[in-house]
């Protein structure tokens, strides 16, 4: 239901479609299991102070990587982030304790930090969006869950709108091309030409969605509700027999 059109996604999100794992075939409970595994590995990294413990945790993360098989793009991104963190932390330790004493403890701490981040990153990279959304809606109150699911569902439409506004503004001569945005002086133009129309559009969209939801009696009951005809229409060839609201 909440799958996002991969073609309309920004570059940062496109990598996920390539590395979608096979969790779809396991279902919801498996996602919870992997979430707990990632969480436990992440928190264990905070407590691991010795090289032996860190090696064991690295082995655990390797198993996670092998099972989930994230794409090369993800691995490249993570290596980039980790190299930056390792360089920064080792440099700070060398400055504090001198090169001889600092590099090893710096490296151990950076290793620990990377192990704390990696399981979560693997999890969110490889589990399909709709399963994570369902997982979140399981634990969230109904109103924020509806808002989150609806807004994520409208992302392809928002991106399409943003693209058409962007192209129109570029044709009008706005300095909002990626190379122009390297200069912070052009950021104001980007906000005026792109963000303001997008926000006006989103306000209208929010109004329309709210109106449509109100027309379908959204919010008249405290808990989550659904229209029973959705299930009926699948079974009865699309007829709207027995339409009534049900509290879940």
């Amino acid at each position: 239901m909440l799958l996002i059109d991969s073609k309309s996604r920004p570059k940062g999100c496109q990598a996920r479609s390539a590395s979608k794992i096979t969790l779809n075939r396991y279902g919801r409970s498996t996602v919870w299991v992997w979430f707990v595994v990632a969480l436990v590995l992440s928190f264990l990294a905070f407590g691991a102070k010795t090289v032996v413990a860190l090696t064991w945790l690295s082995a655990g993360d390797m198993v996670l990587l092998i099972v989930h098989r994230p794409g090369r793009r993800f691995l490249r991104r993570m290596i980039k982030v980790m190299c930056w963190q390792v360089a920064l932390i080792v440099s700070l330790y060398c400055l504090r304790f001198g090169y001889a004493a600092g590099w090893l403890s710096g490296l151990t701490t950076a290793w620990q930090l990377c192990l704390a981040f990696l399981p979560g990153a693997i999890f969110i990279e490889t589990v399909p969006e709709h399963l994570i959304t369902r997982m979140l809606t399981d634990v969230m109150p109904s109103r924020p869950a509806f808002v989150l699911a609806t807004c994520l569902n409208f992302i392809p439409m928002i991106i399409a709108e943003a693209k058409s506004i962007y192209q129109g503004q570029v044709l009008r001569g706005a300095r909002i091309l990626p190379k122009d945005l390297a200069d912070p002086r052009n950021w104001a133009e980007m906000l005026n030409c792109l963000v303001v129309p997008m926000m006006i559009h989103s306000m209208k969209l929010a109004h329309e969605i709210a109106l449509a939801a109100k027309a379908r009696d959204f919010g008249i009951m405290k808990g989550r509700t659904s229209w029973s005809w959705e299930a009926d229409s699948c079974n009865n060839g699309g007829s709207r027999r027995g339409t009534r609201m049900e509290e879940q």
Partner: protein
Amino acid sequence: MSRIPLKESLFLGFCAVFTLLFRALFRLHLHIPGHAMFFTVFFLFMARASVNRLLAASFTGMLAGMGALVLGIGKAGPMLFAKFILPGLVIDLAALLVPGLFQSTILCLMVAALAGSSKFLDTWVVDWLIGMDKKVMLQHALFEGGTAMLFGLIAGLFVVPVIRKLQSHGVIPGKSVEPV
């Protein structure tokens, strides 16, 4: 949050989506850590200015954190939610305590810098949990928080002109930006 009308909740949700989309679409190629804070702070300000409710920015931050989890945007660590919620809390608190916040560029700059610097706290907490040396921990958190503060400050510079523009389009009612 249940007291916020659905239309406003959805608008906050869209602000959260914009935070994530603009981060992904406009990677500014500056190669400076913390530049994502520009969009985070900017859209949290927009959310709070548009929806005059207590904790509106924090709610937007929470939705952005969840959206980041779903879309796989940003470095995912245990502090993923804090990265978005903390600046939101700072903005909400400032909107509550400082009347006329969204009309004054100087006030917006100060609050935006403060919201940006909230990255100091989540870096510090993660480093502390790892058991890093105290001085290194402080330097690391100061570096990360400092760069985020710089970009938060730049975002704060654009808040008032954009709010005025949105007011002129009727998206934000003129007087509702004052905290109640």
